[in-house]
């Protein structure tokens, strides 16, 4: 059994003497005896570190990790520089608590301040918070920000990630809010349908760019429509794509949110990830969660501190607009280190290559007999429609160590590429699909 308890027989005896007890049991006298657990917790005995390693590695070996990945749908297999994982595992960053005691936490606070700056620079927004749980909850929180006494409904394009829509649906249901979906036309938001659904009850309209299916949306054209309805424009964005695509500020979005996983964080079987949220100056004080601000100490030295805390739950309690307490600090730090390691050139290279690979694959696949691709302008993802269903495909791909696209039903697959896909990978994928069809 492993134990992290430094107390020994002697030190325990000494402490009990000081407390004035003979047995640790006396400390639990106040607990009604009928509630006490009779005996030990019914789980396996503790293991040594050697046994723990063996056990966990054995479990890990039943997971299948692929050499080539063409699966995206909101989570992407991007290059993670060695320096990122190294810095993110620094003990001080790993084991520190929330930086409420600013004087001893200037490192963590500055790291988050820099992260906030990065997010503002990528999105063009005035202010960012210190992150929330993930892209889905970031969207839910952004929608909550937009709600007023007279506007309790949000319009969401079907181009938004379905996982996000599910989470937003749960949030709205229990907060007594309404959500309506806007239809797509060839995997792009149907602006006419959006116009028809706009009315004075709509607090905000949500579009994703690139959208879940990889299509580049006309964010400019919806800006006017949404704002003339006096609703807020919320855009869900892929941070890597912002190296090349119009940033939310350029199409007058009010709030920009998204999933920060592509920035140096591994796919990790689903988490932890990080949700980023950035807003205009006007909406800054409505941002939920922690925010780090710059200030000076009594000697006039620059320092950083958690600020605008009067918005938060520990002060507002039931009047807080959100109950959120934590941020995803370590993941945010990871994202910041990634952006520092990559720089503008590196990020552009990643975005360009991811996009180039997608067009390359799209081209090749659309030339395969029995495959149709209907989208034109995409980022790093697209839908391929096959002439018939294929159970063999996944098996064949697996044999070749390739993780294929996401099956959307109806003979459709969502393929994604990143800078890590080689030309070889792409050739092999296309060949196998050709064979199987």
């Amino acid at each position: 059994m492993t134990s992290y308890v430094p107390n020994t027989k002697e030190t325990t005896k000494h402490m009990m003497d000081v407390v004035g007890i003979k047995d640790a049991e006396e400390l639990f006298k106040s607990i009604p005896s009928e509630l006490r657990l009779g005996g030990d917790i019914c789980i396996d005995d503790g293991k040594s570190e050697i046994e723990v390693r063996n056990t966990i590695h054995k479990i890990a070996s039943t997971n299948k990790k692929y050499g080539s990945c063409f699966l995206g749908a909101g989570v992407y297999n991007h290059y993670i520089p060695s320096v990122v994982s190294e810095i993110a595992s620094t003990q001080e960053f790993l084991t520190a608590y929330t930086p409420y005691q600013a004087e001893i936490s200037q490192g963590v606070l500055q790291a988050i301040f820099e992260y906030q700056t990065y997010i503002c620079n990528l999105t063009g927004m005035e202010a960012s918070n210190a992150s929330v749980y993930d892209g889905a909850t970031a969207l839910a929180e952004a929608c909550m920000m937009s709600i007023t006494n007279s506007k309790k409904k949000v319009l969401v394009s079907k181009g938004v990630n379905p996982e996000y829509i599910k989470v937003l649906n749960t949030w709205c249901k229990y907060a007594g809010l309404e959500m309506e979906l806007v239809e797509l036309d060839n995997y792009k938001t149907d602006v006419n349908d959006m116009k028809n659904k706009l009315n004075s009850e709509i607090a905000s309209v949500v579009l994703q760019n690139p959208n879940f299916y990889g299509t580049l949306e006309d964010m400019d054209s919806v800006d006017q429509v949404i704002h003339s309805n006096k609703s807020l424009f919320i855009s869900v964005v892929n941070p890597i794509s912002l190296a090349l695509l119009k940033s939310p500020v350029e199409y007058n979005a009010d709030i920009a949110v998204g999933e920060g996983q592509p920035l140096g964080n591994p796919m990790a079987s689903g988490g932890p990830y990080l949700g980023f949220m950035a807003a205009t100056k006007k909406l800054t004080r409505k941002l939920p969660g922690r925010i780090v601000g710059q200030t000076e100490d009594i000697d006039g030295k620059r320092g950083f501190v958690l600020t605008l805390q009067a918005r938060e739950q520990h002060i507002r309690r039931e009047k807080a607009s959100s109950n959120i307490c934590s941020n995803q600090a370590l993941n945010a730090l990871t994202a910041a280190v990634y952006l520092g390691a990559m720089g503008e050139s590196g990020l552009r290279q990643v975005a360009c290559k991811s996009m180039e690979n997608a067009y390359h694959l799209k081209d090749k696949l659309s030339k395969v007999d029995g495959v149709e691709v209907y989208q034109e302008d995409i980022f790093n993802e697209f839908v391929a429609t096959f002439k018939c269903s294929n159970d063999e495909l996944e098996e064949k791909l697996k044999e070749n160590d390739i993780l294929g696209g996401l099956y959307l039903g109806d003979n459709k697959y969502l393929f994604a590429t990143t800078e890590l896909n080689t030309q070889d990978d792409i050739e092999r994928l296309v060949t196998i699909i050709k064979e199987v069809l």
Partner: protein
Amino acid sequence: MYNELIFEKSIEGANKRNLFNCEKSIVPEKYARKTSLNLPDVAEVDLVRHYQELARKSHGVSNGFYPLGSCTMKYNPVINEEMASICEFTNIHPLQSEEDIQGSLEVMFKLKEVLCEVTGMDDMTLQPSAGAHGELTSLMMIKQFHESNNNAHKNIVFVPDSAHGTNPASAAMVGYDVVEIPSTVDGFVDVEKLCELADENTAALMLTNPNTLGIFEKDIVEIADIIHKVGGKLYYDGANMNAIMGIVRPGDMGFDVMHLNLHKTFSTPHGGGGPGSGPVGCTKELAPYLPNPQVRKQGDKYVLDISEDSIGKVKSFYGNFLVNLRAYTYILSLGGCGLKDASVNAVLNANYMKARLKDHYMMQSEGYCMHEFVMSASKIKEDTGVSALDIAKSMLDAKIHPPTMYFPLIVKEALMIEPTETESLKTLDYACDVLIESAKNAYEDAENLHNAPITMPVRRLDEVTAARKPILKYVKKV
């Protein structure tokens, strides 16, 4: 160069990371970005030094004692980190098929099982990312339960006045009216008042046990009875679970639904503010409402199951998997005996500190505490003007992270101390010596304490200007 932001260290062309010779964008003009990214350009050596400097200006459990009440800052075992970096876990996409992720599903299933055993709950979800997230999830489940049973009129949630702010905030997010239950002078829930207020509109009572003063609510069985009699549900805030593992279980106390903080009780690191994990456990009755999907075992395969009555999803995918994996590693390492041993020592260590400090600070409860205790510096403040804040800041100079200050709200000049079990007697004595010294200094040299800290990278910061004129990002001076 030192104390500069990464943006201030930027030199054009310094970053030589060349991955592919590909920077030509093929984005059509109408979609293309026209503004600059303003990312810093630094060489890798300077990036590494930058973050080393930031690490030096940070303080983790790995640096020193961290007696933050209610946060359970116990040692974060390194073996957990090693397991969380296994590439068969990190390089897995959450949307891979069930056959592909049997390993991850096994971890989730087994963790669920052991946590149910530890807490006395029947079922559990690992989806919520944090304690507050778990609270929200629990309240959504309670709301759905009542609605499904034609009790939608139940719109009141009781919260003790000593509760953490996330409790009422979570209840309000789900549309409940929050009613505060007063505490008695000893810090217990006023059971009489609760009995008076509980009626057919009661949806739930949110409680933590031990309470935020660190003492066990001995009337818990009666409290559970009162709430259940009016058809309400009893919710357990698991923040203080480190006091009771192997001793008593929330399920046995009568709680219907609860959340755990894996980043507190189960040793996963705090990361400077996250990521955490806030699993929600519940009785059989509430299990159908747990978030989708749930991990189940069919024969010797693990599968993902969808419940029609589920509240839906509260986060994308399955939760903070790598955090959950760390907690699983911890539980495997300690086993049942080890978990109980952790709680017993956590309680002993807290009582030891309480005994050593009781002549210097006002203790908020008589008798033994559980894993934490609250003391007040209000007499010191009255006599000398030195506040709990001043005392806390003086600890920084001794390289000890201060305890939780000014919480719970019902205690003036509160300092909440939770040593945890992973501290030696030497450390506890050192911390007590520092606190006793500060209390003495308050009477001899108050000015010194008002000026603390003096050895940190910065001195006391102007929080007023930071809130009045917020500067939330770096802007290059033109």
